[in-house]
Each structure stands twice: as structure tokens, then as C-alpha cells.
């Protein structure tokens, strides 16, 4: 268990280091999130109440699309030189998955935290006062996206059209998570206390993390 955890941290550090050098998913994901936010801001002519009402939905649509780009690279990163084989031979599947989920979580969190001020600026929404609660919602929902996305990234790693397959499988599974995150984010930005709904995100995260950790060995070794 201890060796598995230290292997997971080593894999996460490796993924972050290679991503920092290549910036292949970070640049694409961040650009995509910003483009969506900016385009929507020009597409709709909304008054302040309308903007606040749809703020959570807008933000999480951008985060969900950006997240798919990041998790898509998670296991695909191991394809050149058959590195995944070496990992599977050396480390239990759950440790590989956990390491990759941690790296994706950090990368997506960076994208989200950079996008948030841009979102506030373009939609004239004040988010700083509710930032601590908002950060908790973002962290929980982001973990859910990376866990489900990471597992599906492993499922589709050897599929020829994986860039297409992953979103097709991912978005339906994320619906409950996104609905919860959207409602809570809109509530927080409107100054409503909605933290009792946080249980939905916690249950989703616990359920899908347990499921992914249990199933990953069957997904990777066939």
C-alpha cells in the first residue's frame, strides 16, 4: 500500500513534469476554456440578473470541455515507446490510476483558477467574496471530472478514435456532477448559501473513485 502510494506520487510528478515541458494539454485546455467564455460573453446580451442566473452553467460548461482535453492525454501519454506496459509490469493498476488522476486534477485546477478571473471580468460577476466556498465546489467537482475522465481515458487508450470516444462516454456520466456543480456555483455567485448540496459532489466523488480504483486493473490488463 505504502509503495503503491509512493509510486502514485512518482507518476503524478512525472506527468506534471512532462506536461510542463511540452504543455501539450495545458495550452489547449486553457485556450479552449477562455475561448468558450469569451465567445459566450459576446453571443448573449444579458442583464445582470440573467448573467448571474446562468453563471454556474457557463462556467462549468467551459470547465467540462477543458477537462475532457486534459484527461484525454492522461493515459495517451503512455503510448509512445510502450511506456504503459512498463508501468503495468512494475506498479499496481490502482497506483497508476491514482497518480494520473492527481496530475490531471492539478492541471485542470490550474486551468480553472486562471479562467475564473477572466470569467468574472467578461461577465461582470463578483466571485472574490465567495471564493473559499467556490474553491471547495471547484475542487470536489474537478476531482469527479478527473476520476471519471481518467478511468475512461484508460478504457479508450487503445481505441483509434479516442479523441472522439472519450467525450461521448464522459459527458453523460458527468451529468449529475455538473448539475450539482452548476447549481452550487450559481447559488454562491448569487450570494445564497448552498453548501448543504455539497453532499451530492462528495457522494459522486467517493462512489466513482472507489469504482475506478476497483475496476482499473480489469481495464488495463485484458
Amino acid at each position: 500500500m505504502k509503495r503503491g502510494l509512493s509510486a502514485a506520487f512518482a507518476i503524478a510528478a512525472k506527468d506534471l513534469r512532462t506536461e510542463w515541458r511540452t504543455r501539450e494539454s495545458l495550452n489547449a485546455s486553457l485556450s479552449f476554456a477562455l475561448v468558450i467564455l469569451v465567445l459566450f460573453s459576446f453571443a448573449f446580451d444579458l442583464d445582470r440578473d440573467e448573467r448571474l442566473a446562468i453563471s454556474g452553467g457557463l462556467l462549468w460548461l467551459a470547465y467540462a470541455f477543458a477537462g475532457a482535453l486534459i484527461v484525454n492525454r492522461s493515459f495517451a501519454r503512455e503510448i509512445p515507446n510502450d511506456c504503459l506496459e512498463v508501468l503495468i509490469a512494475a506498479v499496481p493498476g490502482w497506483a497508476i490510476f491514482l497518480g494520473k488522476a492527481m496530475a490531471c486534477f492539478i492541471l485542470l485546477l490550474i486551468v480553472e483558477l486562471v479562467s475564473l478571473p477572466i470569467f468574472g471580468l467578461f461577465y461582470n460577476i463578483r466571485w472574490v467574496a465567495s471564493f473559499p466556498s467556490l474553491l471547495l465546489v471547484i475542487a470536489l467537482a474537478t476531482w469527479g471530472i478527473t476520476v471519471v475522465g481518467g478511468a475512461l481515458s484508460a478504457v479508450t487508450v487503445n481505441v483509434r478514435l479516442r479523441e472522439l470516444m472519450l467525450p461521448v462516454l464522459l459527458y453523460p456520466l458527468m451529468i449529475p456532477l455538473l448539475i450539482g456543480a452548476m447549481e452550487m456555483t450559481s447559488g454562491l455567485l448569487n450570494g445564497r448559501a448552498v453548501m448543504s448540496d455539497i453532499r451530492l459532489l462528495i457522494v459522486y466523488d467517493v462512489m466513482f473513485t472507489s469504482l475506478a480504483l476497483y475496476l482499473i486493473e480489469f481495464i488495463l490488463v485484458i
Partner: protein
Amino acid sequence: MHAVAADGVWKYFGDYPALRGANLHVAPGSCVALLGRNGAGKTTLLRILAGLSKPTKGVVNIHGRIGYLGHGIGVYDDLSAFENLTLFGQLTGVANPTQSANDALEHVGLTRVKDGLAREFSRGMRQRLAIARAFLHHPELLLLDEPFTSLDDRAVAVLQQLLAAARARGSTIVMSTHQIREAMELASDVALLERGRIIFSGPRNNDMLLDPGWLYRTYGDNKS
């Protein structure tokens, strides 16, 4: 107790049986040359032994830490040689990954370029890095899939040296190969796979050493 015990192993890819009840028992400390023609099932069997693939039927028991060298080199292009080996040291639970990485780089003659990214290396250097990676954690069981294929002279020498050192340490080696002459010189035992079945398994004898084709002629499907 065997280092490797595979009993009645079947593996289907769709309807095609790549392995048909293969049995392989390898004593600790022995070096087995796994021979067979293309499509005989060597890679499939090695992948199952390495835990990369599940048998459709049959039982596999492995004792000891595995070092695996497959068809791919298994190193990250965007990490330096030193970072690659340190990472694999951490993954395999080596006590001092930094020291082990430095030692391994010295063994394969890559110390001078240890901070260079693997993507900038020549093919031969990448192969030596892959060899260093497979041997880094002093595994008790080495599973090598055609390890001599397309190696340059220097990499062949490095591999032979590391294999000899591994054998001296008591490691068990199972390697598939088409280079029968090199394999016979290293092997203590030979297993011949034909259409998914092990049709011969036993100690290497002088006939095999003197005439590499002898085994195929004596036990192969088109034996005379």
C-alpha cells in the same frame, strides 16, 4: 518451487487461440530461451507472465520481482536519461533511486549524457537506456522479448554483460528470440513454442549448441 509456473494457459484474440494450453515451468536461477517461429505465441506468453495480459484459461504463478523488456523501449522521451531511471527506481521501490540510476547509467555508458532528454538520443543510446531500465532494480525474474533484435554492437555487449551479472546473482531469465545462436550460448534451458503449445522444454544440450536448427528439425512441426 518454480520461479515461473504456467499451467494449461490459453489465450484467445477473438476466435483465434494464440496460446493453446501452454505449460512452462522454470526453475529459479535458470535461463530459458523461448524459441518459436513468428506467430507461435512467444510474445503473448511473455506478456501473460509479465502480468500485462490475462490468460483466457489456465493458471500462472510468478515468484519474485519482474524486470520486463518488451518490443517498445519503455522510456519517456520528454524526460532525461537520469530522470527516466530515477522514476523507474521509485516505481519499483529501489532503496536509493538516485544512486541506482547513476550506477545503471555508468553500466550502459550513458553517464556523459545523463541530463539529455531521451528524445535527443540516437537509437543505440535509447536501447541502452531501455536495457538499464529493465535491469535497474535487480529483478529476480527477467522477461525479455527478443532482446537482441536490432541492437547495435555496443548494446549487445552491454546486454550480454548485464545478463551474465544477473545470472551470477541468481536471477531467472526467460527470453524469447529469433537469434538462436546467441540464445543457445546464454541459455541453460530451452522451450520451443509451436502454434501456441510448448512442444519441447528441457535443458540445452550440445546438439542445440553446435547446430541451432537441430531443435526445429527434431521437435518442430515439419521435423524430418
